[in-house]
C-alpha cells in the first residue's frame, strides 16, 4: 500500500494505482469523461486534472498519473475548477446542446458536469458541427455532433470486443469517430460502444424516445439466452422491459453484453406473446380458461405411466425443472429429457465418466488467468460471445496463448498470434487423440497420470493415433499436431474450452472424454487457470443437468420421438422446447408430433411445435419469474421478477405445481422451498440459499474423480461430389428464442449457407444467391454467404430459424453430405 494525501486527507491505496483510482477507493470523486475502469487509461478529456505538490503544483491528469509514496494531491483548487470549467466550455463550443430532444438527457456525463460546474452560460461561441447522423442500422444511432471524443467506443470495440468497427478519423477540430472509409456500422452489434458513451452520440435505437432514464425502474436479472450467465439490468416502465441498462459493476463481465443480451430483450414484451390458454376444438386452437386447459392435461397425465413423456427447454429455472420432473414422476413416467437428448451428453456421459461429475472443472474466471487456451471450434465465440470477450482480453492484455482446433476459421483466429488448426469436418476427436498420443510418446505426461484408472487401456487404444496417422484423415500436418501437443503440455496453466448444443452433435460424450484425457494426462486440472470448460448452450443447460432433468431410467429425447411415432408415447408435454425447428430431421419430428395422441406445449410463443399441440399453455419469461439459473461454470444465480406476468401467462413453476396438485400430489409453495430442496440434494449445491447467492451468485464446486475413458471415433467418409455441411450457432442467436428478439432479428433475420470463395467460384455462386441444398433426407433453400474463413468443400449453416430450416436437410450427424445448386 502507498500512503498519500488527497485534499488534506491521509489515505492509502494499492501500489500501481493511478491518482484517479486512489481517490475513488477513498471516496473522493474526480470528474472525468474519458475514463472507463475496463479500458486502458486515456488521459484525453482533461477533466480529471489535479495538482500534485511534488510536481511543483503542476496540473496533471489523475487518470494516467501513477501514485507515489507521500504524494500530496489537491483535486479541486480554484485554478483546477477554472480549468475544468474551461474544458466544459470548450466542449460545449461545438456541441449542439439539444438536450430536450436527446435520449441521453438525464443520464449524460456532459450534462451532469455542466450542471455541477455551473457552466450556465458559455463565454465562448463558435460554429457548431454539421456531421450527418448515421441511421443506417436499426440498433445503434451515431450522432457525432454530440461527441466529446472520449474514444471509449473505439477503445472498447478494440480492447474488449476486438472488432475494431469504430476508430478516430481526421485530425484537429475535424476529428471524429467513424467506421472505416466513413462507411456505416457493420459489426457485432453488441452495443458495448453505446454502453460506454458518456453523451448522446451513440444511442440504442430500439429504446429511442421510449422513456427518460430516471423514469425507469432498474431490475437486476440474469440473461435468458446463453449459458454464460451474464448479469443484466432491465429498465422497466409500465410493466414493460424497455431496455437493458448498463452497469459497469455488474457481474464478472463488468456489464459487458453481446447483441442478444443487450438488444434481444424485446421477446419479453413482444406482442406475439401468448396471452391465454388454448385448447384444440374441432381441429383449431381456441381460447380456454386455465382451469379447463389444466384439467384436460391433468386427465391425460393421471396414471399415464410410461405412455407419457416430457421435454423441457433448459431455459426453465432449476426449481421449475425439479417440479417438472416431479410432475412426470407423479404421472408415473421416467421419460423426460432436454436438448434433443444428445446435446448434453458431453456432460452427462462424457464428463460424468471422465471426471465423475457432469460439470466442468473450470470457470470462466480461469480464462484470463491461464497461460494457454485450447479452443475447440471457433464457434465458441459465436455461441458464448461474452466468454469470447474474456478470451480477447486474455490474449490481448495478458499475453495468453491461443490455440484453436476447428473445422473453419473464425473471429478468434484473428487474435494476435492465434494458431488455428483447421481440420476436416468430423475429425476433431481423432486429432485430440493424436494430441494425447503425442503427449504420451514425447513423455510429456504428468507423473500422476499413470495412476489414474484406465491409463493402460487408453495407452493401448491410442496406438493407432500417431500424428502421422491422423494427419491424413484430418488434413493437418503431423508437425502441427505435435507442436500443439507440446505447447499444451508444456504450458504451466492451460485451459480447454468447447461449446455444446443442439447444433453440435459432434461435441458428444466421446469428444468430452477425449478432451478430458488431455487434461488428466498433463495434470492441467484443479489449479487456477487450468481445466476444461464445457460451454453448454442455454442459460440453464448446466442447471438442467444438475437437476437431473435427462433420461436416466426412462427414454431419452430421441427415443421419446420414436415413441411418439410408434404410438408408444401417447401424451407428450413440451415445456419451452421447439423440436420442430431445433431438433434434427424436421420431417421425422413433425411426423412424430403429428402422430402423438395428445401434445401439450407450454411456451411464450405460438411456435411451430405449439401450433401442433392439443393444449397450449401461455408461460412466463425469465423476467416474470423467481428462481435460479446455473451457468456453464456452475455459477448459481438468483433471479427475481422484473415485471408482472404478461396477460394470463403463468410461470412454469405455477403450471407444474397446479398440475401436481390436480394429480393429487403435494406441490411446494414457492421456488424458495424448492431451492431449499436442491441445496439439500444436488451435488455441489449443498449449503446454498438465496441469501448466500447474493448479487453475484455462488459457484457449485465440482469434485473430480478422474478416470481415462477411451473415446470412440467415427471416421467421416467423404461422399464423392458432395460438400460437407456443418451446423452451428450464429453470433446473434441462441436456440430459437432469439427469433423473437427484435435486435438479433434486425441483424441476422434468416438462415444462410456459408461457403468458401473457391466453392462459390466453382459453382458460380454469388453472395445472396438463393441456393437449393439437398441431402439424403430432404432439401431446403438458403441464401449464399461467401466468406474467406470457410475451407474448400465445407459449408456452414446456423440452425435457429423456423423458415428455410436447416433441419430439413440435417439428420443430426456431425457432418451432412449435401449438394448445392442454384
Amino acid at each position: 500500500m502507498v500512503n498519500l494525501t488527497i485534499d488534506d486527507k491521509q489515505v492509502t491505496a494499492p501500489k500501481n494505482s493511478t491518482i484517479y483510482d486512489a481517490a475513488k477507493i477513498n471516496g473522493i470523486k474526480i470528474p472525468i469523461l474519458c475514463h472507463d475502469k475496463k479500458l486502458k487509461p486515456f488521459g484525453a478529456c482533461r477533466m480529471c486534472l489535479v495538482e500534485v505538490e511534488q510536481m511543483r503544483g503542476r496540473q496533471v491528469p489523475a487518470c494516467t498519473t501513477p501514485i507515489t509514496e507521500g504524494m500530496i494531491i489537491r483535486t479541486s483548487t480554484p485554478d483546477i475548477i477554472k480549468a475544468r470549467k474551461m474544458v466544459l466550455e470548450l466542449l460545449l463550443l461545438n456541441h449542439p446542446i439539444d438536450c430536450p430532444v436527446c435520449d441521453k438527457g438525464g443520464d449524460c456525463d456532459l450534462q451532469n458536469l455542466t450542471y455541477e460546474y455551473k457552466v450556465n452560460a458559455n463565454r465562448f461561441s463558435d460554429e457548431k458541427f454539421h456531421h450527418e447522423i448515421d441511421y443506417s442500422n436499426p440498433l445503434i444511432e451515431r450522432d457525432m455532433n454530440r461527441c466529446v471524443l472520449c474514444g471509449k467506443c473505439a477503445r472498447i470495440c478494440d480492447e474488449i470486443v476486438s472488432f475494431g468497427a469504430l476508430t478516430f478519423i481526421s485530425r484537429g477540430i475535424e476529428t471524429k469517430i467513424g467506421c472505416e472509409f466513413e462507411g456505416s456500422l457493420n459489426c457485432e452489434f453488441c452495443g458495448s460502444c453505446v454502453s460506454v458513451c458518456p453523451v448522446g452520440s451513440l444511442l440504442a435505437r430500439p429504446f429511442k424516445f421510449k422513456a427518460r432514464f430516471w423514469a425507469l425502474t432498474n431490475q437486476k436479472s440474469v440473461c435468458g439466452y446463453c449459458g454464460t450467465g451474464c448479469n443484466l439490468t432491465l429498465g422497466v416502465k409500465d410493466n414493460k422491459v424497455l431496455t437493458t441498462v448498463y452497469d459497469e459493476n455488474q457481474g464478472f463481465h463488468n456489464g459487458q453484453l453481446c447483441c442478444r443480451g443487450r438488444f434481444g430483450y424485446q421477446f419479453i414484451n413482444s406482442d406475439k406473446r401468448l396471452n391465454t390458454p388454448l385448447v384444440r376444438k374441432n381441429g383449431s386452437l381456441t381460447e380456454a380458461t386455465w382451469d379447463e386447459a389444466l384439467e384436460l392435461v391433468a386427465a391425460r397425465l393421471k396414471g399415464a405411466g410410461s405412455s407419457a413423456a416430457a421435454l423441457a427447454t433448459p431455459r426453465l429455472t432449476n426449481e421449475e425443472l425439479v417440479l417438472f420432473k416431479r410432475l412426470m414422476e407423479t404421472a408415473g413416467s421416467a421419460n423426460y429429457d432436454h436438448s434433443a437428448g444428445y446435446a448434453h451428453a458431453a456432460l452427462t456421459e462424457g464428463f460424468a465418466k471422465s471426471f465423475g461429475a457432469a460439470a466442468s472443472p473450470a470457470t470462466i474466471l480461469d480464462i484470463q488467468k491461464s497461460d494457454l487456451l485450447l479452443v475447440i471450434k471457433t464457434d465458441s465465440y459465436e455461441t458464448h460471445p461474452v466468454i469470447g470477450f474474456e478470451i480477447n482480453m486474455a490474449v490481448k492484455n495478458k499475453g495468453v496463448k491461443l490455440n484453436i482446433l476447428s473445422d473453419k476459421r473464425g473471429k478468434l483466429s484473428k487474435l494476435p498470434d492465434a494458431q488455428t488448426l483447421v481440420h476436416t469436418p468430423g475429425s476433431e476427436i481423432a486429432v485430440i487423440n493424436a494430441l494425447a498420443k503425442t503427449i504420451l510418446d514425447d513423455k510429456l505426461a504428468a507423473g500422476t497420470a499413470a495412476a489414474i484408472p484406465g491409463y493402460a487401456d487408453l495407452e493401448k487404444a491410442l496406438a493407432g493415433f500417431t500424428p502421422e496417422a491422423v494427419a491424413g484423415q484430418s488434413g493437418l500436418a503431423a508437425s502441427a499436431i505435435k507442436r500443439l501437443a507440446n505447447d499444451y503440455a508444456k504450458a504451466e496453466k492451460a485451459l480447454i474450452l468447447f461449446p455444446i448444443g443442439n447444433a453440435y452433435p459432434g461435441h458428444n460424450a466421446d469428444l468430452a472424454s477425449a478432451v478430458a484425457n488431455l487434461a488428466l494426462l498433463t495434470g492441467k486440472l484443479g489449479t487456477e487457470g487450468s481445466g476444461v470448460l464445457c460451454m453448454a448452450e442455454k442459460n440453464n443447460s448446466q442447471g438442467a443437468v444438475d437437476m437431473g432433468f435427462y433420461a436416466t431410467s426412462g427414454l431419452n429425447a430421441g427415443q421419446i420421438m420414436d415413441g411418439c411415432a410408434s404410438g408408444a408415447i401417447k401424451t407428450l408435454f413440451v415445456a419451452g422446447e421447439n423440436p420442430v425447428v431445433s431438433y434434427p430431421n424436421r420431417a421425422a419430428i413433425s411426423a412424430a408430433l403429428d402422430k402423438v395422441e395428445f401434445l401439450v406445449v407450454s411456451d411464450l410463443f405460438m411456435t411451430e411445435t405449439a401450433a401442433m399441440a392439443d393444449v397450449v399453455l401461455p408461460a412466463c419469461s425469465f423476467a416474470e419469474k423467481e428462481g435460479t439459473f446455473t451457468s456453464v461454470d456452475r455459477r448459481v444465480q438468483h433471479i427475481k421478477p422484473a415485471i408482472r406476468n404478461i396477460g394470463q401467462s403463468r410461470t412454469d413453476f405455477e403450471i407444474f405445481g397446479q398440475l401436481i396438485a390436480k394429480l393429487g400430489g403435494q406441490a411446494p409453495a414457492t421456488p424458495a422451498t424448492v431451492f431449499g430442496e436442491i441445496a439439500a440434494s444436488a451435488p455441489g449445491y449443498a449449503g446454498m440459499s438465496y441469501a448466500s447467492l447474493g448479487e453475484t451468485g455462488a459457484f457449485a464446486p465440482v469434485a473430480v474423480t478422474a478416470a481415462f475413458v477411451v473415446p470412440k471415433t467415427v471416421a467421416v467418409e467423404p461422399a464423392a461430389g458432395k460438400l460437407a455441411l456443418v451446423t452451428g450457432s450464429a453470433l446473434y442467436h441462441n436456440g430459437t428464442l432469439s427469433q423473437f428478439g427484435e435486435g438479433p432479428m434486425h441483424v441476422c433475420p434468416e438462415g444462410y449457407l456459408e461457403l468458401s470463395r473457391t466453392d462459390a467460384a466453382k459453382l458460380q455462386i454469388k453472395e445472396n444467391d438463393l441456393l437449393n441444398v439437398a441431402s439424403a433426407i430432404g432439401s431446403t433453400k438458403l441464401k449464399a454467404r461467401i466468406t474467406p474463413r470457410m475451407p474448400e468443400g465445407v459449408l456452414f449453416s446456423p440452425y435457429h430459424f423456423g423458415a428455410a430450416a436447416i433441419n430439413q436437410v440435417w439428420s443430426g450427424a456431425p457432418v451432412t453430405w449435401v449438394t448445392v445448386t442454384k
Partner: protein
Amino acid sequence: MNDILFRHNRPDRAVTLDEYRAEGGFQALQKALADLSPDAVQQTVIDSGLRGRGGAGFPTGKKWSFVPRNLPGPRYLICNCDEMEPGTYKDRVLLERNPYLLVEGMALACYALGVERAFIFIRRGYELAAQNLKGAIAQAHKAGFLGSAICGSTFNLELDVHQSAGRYICGEETALMNALEGIRANPRSKPPFPAVKGLWGQPTVVNNVETLSNIPAIVAHGPAWFKALAATPEGAGTKLFCVSGHVQKPLCLELPIGTTLGEIIDTHCGGMRAGSTFKACIPGGASTPYFTRDHRTVPLDFDPVAKAGSRLGTGGVVVFDQTTCMVAATLNLVRFFARESCGWCTPCREGLPFVQHILERIEAGRGEMADMDILREHVHKLNYAFCALAPGAMGPVEGLLRLFEDEVREHITGGKCPLGN
C-alpha cells in the same frame, strides 16, 4: 565556423563515404568499439553537456541513462527527422550534405545503449535526404560499419529508414512511435516514459538528427573540446541555425551555440533586406515566443533564451520586418497548429481553433477587448494539454500578448489592422 556538422560539406552535393573517411569519418566508431565500453561512451556524452536539438533541449546523456539496464527483450533508438515545425529546416540541410555523421552518430549511440535495431523517421517530402541516408546506410554496410560484428567487434546494428505519412504530430516522440507501429499517430501518456516502455513496449530513446550527428565529434575529441566550442561559458558545442524571413541572405549555418541574435543576422545573414528594419523574430521554430529588438544581444543558447522569455527550440530563426503585422503572423502560426492538432485532447482540439477564430476576428477588426483576456486564459490553460503541441502553439500567442499588446489593442480599437492587412 563549421567545426562539426558542416565540417565535411561540399558546396553542391553530399559528401561521399571515401571523402568522409579521409577526413576522419568513422574513426570515432572504430575507437569506441576498440577501446571504450558502452558505459564510457555514455559517460562521455553526459560529460559533454550535449542537449537535445529536437526542441526541448533535454540533456542527451541523461536521457540515455534512463534506459533500464536489465529489462529483457530488445531496445530501440529512433532518430527523429520529422522536422515539420515551420521555420525549421536544419535537419534537411544536414542530411542533404552529410548523411554519414548521422549513421556514425547512431552507431555510437546504439553501442552505448545496447541497441541492435534503430530507425530513422523522416519527413515525407525529404526525398533527397532520405535517398542520401539510404545510400549512406548501404555504403556503411558494405564498409562494415553496420550489420553484424561491426569493425570486428561483437556489436551488431541494423538501421531502417521510415518515411512518414506526413503530419506534424508524428514528430512528437510518442506519436512517432505509434506511427512507426502502424497505428494512429496520437501521443501516448507519460509515464511510462519511452526510455522504459516505448516502441512495441520496449525501452526506446528518441533523439533528433542534429543531436545524434554531434556524437562522433564528441567521442573523437572529448567533452572538454566540445564544451569549449560554445560561445557562452555554460553552453556546449555548436548549433545549426536556420534563418529565414526578411534578411539579406536566409541560410542555415553552424555557429557556436550562444552566438547572439544580432551577430547571426548582421554578420552571417548580411543584415536585413534593403528597406527593412528588424521588428521581431521567432528565435527557435514556430512554437517559441517572439524576440524583439531588445533581444538582439541575447546569446542563442538554451538557458539565456529561456531567461529572456522564449525557447531556443530548434534554432529556426524567422525574422520579421516593420511591415509584418504580429497578429497576422501569430494567426498564421496558430492556424498551422490548429490544423495539425491530433484531435486527442480537449484543450488542443477545441481550444486552438477557437484561438484561431479569435485572432481572425481581431485581425479583421472585429475583435473585442474581452478577447485579450480569453486569449490569456488559453495561454495558461492550454499548458495542460496531453502533449507539448498545444502549449507550443500558444508560445507565439503568449509572445504576442506580452510584447505586442499595443498592436493587438490598436486592431481592436481601430476596427482594422493598423498595417492595412
